[in-house]
Structure formats: structure tokens, C-alpha cells
């Protein structure tokens, strides 16, 4: 359980009292989404823009004292999948051949596309990971809510975050219960137990949803999620977003 919290679950990392950690979540969302957009929207082989994006991300990580290891561990979950898809491109692009691997030719343009996709994927992933490392999930959700993201979506996100661990824990218990009765499916027919487990989990989750709704009603819920103190943007937030945009936008326009 605690392992899930540390890695897949994310959560703030680094020096939690650092300046970037204390910024308004909206500033961090805008800043890091801007980095992603600039990185992703550049044409092929715009290396200087990606270098600048990388430097900005490194600077943010340094300011928040987020260890490189944390970023690596969390990015590792997504990144290989994205890059795997791109890895085939050099073999199927036409153009100038730079190397041959048996019957397959590696084209120069293909390599450039691979490099570009890899760079874009890395920038996007690291931005998201970094946002998660310097902002807690509840803060991100509050930020999105204040930025007029439809309330239904933010509510779903909030509940999902809250109950993900509860449901994962239930699933883990059911799996150990199966395993402790020597359940090791070898044929497709034996997998039926998994289907029953899935439907049991669904039913449990459904009735939990009902109980939660009752608990909400019991405390006077009337269809509107109340909010505590509103978020306030400070000068530091403007400086953070301003610095990122000033560094990246000119480069993006030139390239």
C-alpha cells in the first residue's frame, strides 16, 4: 500500500516548504502546461526550443529541490510506452539511408522524427511529473476548479483520488484471498473467477458510493460542493509564470 503512495500515487516531493511548492496551484498549472505546449507544438528538430524547455524544467525542479531520482521513477511509468511507438519510425520512413540493419533501412528523416517525438514526450511527461511533485493532488484539483474547469469533472477527479486507494486496497485483499486458496489460473476457463472478482468489486464500489452519498446528505449536502477560502494569486505567482513564458515564447516564435 505505502509503495503505491510513494510512486504511482505521486504526491509532493522535494522540499515541501520551497518557494515553488508554496505557489498558487493555478500558477503552477499554467506554467507547466505552457512548457508542455511550447515543447509539443514546435516543428521537427527544433532542438534549441527543447533544450530551453529542459532547462526551465530543471530550474523548477532545482528550486523545489525535487530529486532527479523521483522524477525518473515516476516518468519511467509512462515514458517507455510513448517512446516504444516512435522507435519503429526510423525503419519505415523513406529518404536518405544512414544505416542498414539486415533487410531494414534506417532513414535520416526517420531518426529525426524519432528524436523529436522522444523529446516532446519527455518534456510533456516530465512537466506533468514535476507538477505532481510540487503540487498536491487536492491543490491541483482546486486550481482547476477555480480555473472554471467544469465542476463535474473536478468532482469526479477528487472522488477518484480519494477512493483510488480504498478500491486498490479492496482489490489487493480479494486477490490475496484468491491466491491463499491456491488459485493459479492455467486455462481460460479458470479465469472465470477473475470475472466474478471484478463484478464483486463493482458491486462493493457501487454500494460504497451509496453509503458515501448518505454520509454526505447527513452533513447537509444539497447538491453543491462548498468551498473553503478562495485561492489568491500573489506576486510570486505572476513572476513564476512570467519567467517561464519570457524564456520560452521568444524562442518558440523564432524557430
Amino acid at each position: 500500500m505505502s509503495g503505491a503512495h510513494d510512486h504511482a500515487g505521486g504526491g509532493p516531493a522535494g522540499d515541501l516548504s520551497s518557494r515553488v511548492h508554496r505557489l498558487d496551484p493555478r500558477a503552477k498549472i499554467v506554467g507547466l502546461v505552457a512548457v508542455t505546449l511550447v515543447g509539443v507544438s514546435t516543428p521537427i528538430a527544433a532542438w534549441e526550443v527543447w533544450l530551453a524547455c529542459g532547462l526551465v524544467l530543471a530550474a523548477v525542479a532545482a528550486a523545489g529541490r525535487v530529486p532527479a531520482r523521483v522524477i525518473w521513477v515516476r516518468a519511467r511509468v509512462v515514458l517507455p510506452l510513448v517512446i516504444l511507438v516512435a522507435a519503429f519510425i526510423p525503419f519505415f520512413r523513406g529518404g536518405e539511408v544512414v544505416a542498414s540493419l539486415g533487410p531494414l533501412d534506417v532513414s535520416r528523416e526517420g531518426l529525426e522524427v524519432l528524436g523529436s517525438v522522444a523529446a516532446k514526450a519527455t518534456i510533456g511527461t516530465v512537466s506533468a511529473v514535476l507538477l505532481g511533485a510540487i503540487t498536491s493532488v487536492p491543490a491541483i484539483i482546486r486550481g482547476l476548479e477555480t480555473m472554471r474547469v467544469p465542476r463535474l469533472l473536478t468532482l469526479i477527479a477528487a472522488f477518484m483520488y480519494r477512493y483510488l486507494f480504498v478500491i486498490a486496497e479492496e482489490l489487493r485483499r480479494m486477490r490475496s484471498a484468491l491466491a491463499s486458496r491456491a488459485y493459479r489460473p492455467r486455462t481460460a476457463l479458470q479465469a472465470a473467477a477473475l470475472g466474478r472478482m471484478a463484478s464483486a468489486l463493482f458491486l462493493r464500489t457501487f454500494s460504497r458510493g451509496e453509503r458515501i452519498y448518505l454520509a454526505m446528505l447527513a452533513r447537509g449536502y444539497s447538491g453543491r460542493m462548498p468551498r473553503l477560502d478562495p485561492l489568491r494569486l500573489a506576486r510570486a505567482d505572476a513572476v513564476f509564470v512570467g519567467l517561464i513564458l519570457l524564456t520560452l515564447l521568444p524562442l518558440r516564435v523564432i524557430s
Partner: protein
Amino acid sequence: MSCAVHARGLTHRYPGGHLALEGIDLHIGHGERVAVLGPNGAGKTTLMLHLNGLLTATAGALEVAGLEVCRRSLGELRARVGLVFQDPDDQLFMPTVHEDVAFGPLNMGLGRDEVAARVDEALAAVRMSDAADRAPHLLSQGQRRRVAIATVLAMDPMLLVLDEPSANLDPRARRELVGLLAEIDRTMLIVTHDLPFAAELCERSLILSAGRLVADAPTDEVLADDDLLAAHDLEMPAGIALDLITRRPRPGAEAAGLSLRAGG
């Protein structure tokens, strides 16, 4: 002053036809701490859901905290009656402890300063002030239970209803919970089948069995009646003697006792 709970012939039949409560007559005075005992499926939780208007009686009358339970009184009723559900994971649904405790008071339409003060006060009362910014899933079971109680205390209810508060707690968390509940100065209804827990906190006990109220007497009498307990699938844990359990006094017990005598 009106009774905290005043039920006359309270009956509830679920849409499926199951008769969960049958003609309950019950009067609970202000400041009383009452245990609702009974085996699983006796209707304890159904009764609890009525106290807050989450279910409405199919027959009979119910008045709680001075309000007739009906659609019009729901908002006010939910501010006056605090339900603490059995599984704290059902009760704590906000991303942080602080927001969760603030949920009730905000729904009551209180101002931000008042809400903040109530949140601080409620968390201090359950000794969880340090956890205000933590996520509920990072707390231990005992801590979650205490925060769940704080979420209701923050609404400053007149009547506090707890469903199986000692379930799933380790002995230490259970002992701490007893100490904490003993200090809360509210009319309290504790739904449980943990008999020593009831004996420690409640001077009066009810036994609910198959939807009927079969006993309503001082806890010492109810728990000493082995035949009565056995008839309703209840029993004291092996090796626990009733006379070794000391009842926690109610905060300001004398004053409450006097007013009860004056009222009764």
C-alpha cells in the same frame, strides 16, 4: 424542554417488503448517553438513518432534537443531529482532513471565519489538529475514526449518533476512543454490539431485535441478564466481568442529573 428523541410507534418497511422497524416507542432525554444493542440485521442502522431524516418512517411519529422529522425540517435536522457512520472511509470523502471537517459547517451556510474556528475546535477535541492538511487515506483506522467524529462535532449537533464506533479498532485506539467520547458533552446514541464498550460509556441500554425494542433499562441491568442477552444473540466477551468495568462519568453529570430529575 423537549426530548432529544421521541418516537411513537415508529415503523419502517423497506420497498422490498422487509419490515426493519416495528412499532418502536422510545424517549431519550437531553444529555443521556444511550447504547443501542442488538445482533446484525436487528434494525439498528435503519433506526439511526431515521434520526437524521435519511429514511422516513412508513408509520408512526418521530421527533428528534425538538423537530418533527419531515421533508421541511431536513436542513435544520441535519445540523442538529450528527451521524458518524460505521466505515470512516464512507464519511471522509474530501481530499484533505481540513476540507472534510469544513464540509458540514459550510453546508450550514456559516461564514468562513466561523467555519475555520469550528474546524480547529473539532480537530482539537479529537486530538487530530496535526493532521488537518493530510489526506484521509494516509491516516490509521483509529485516526480516521476520530476525524470522522470531528466532521460531525464541527456542526455542533445536539445529538450525536455513532454506528459501531469501536469496530475495526486495535485495543489502544479503542481505549483512546472511549476516553474521547467520555469527554464529549452531548446527548449520545451509540449503536454497537461491543457490550463492554457500551458498559463503559452508557448508563442506559436498549436492545433492538428483529425490528422490535425488546429491552430498555439501565445498562448494568441489561448486561447482567444473561438470558436476555442470549435470546438476542448478544454476549459479554469471555473473561470480562461487568463489575470490573467502571463507567466514565458524563461531563457535568451532576447538572444533567438535576435537570433530568426536575424535568422527569
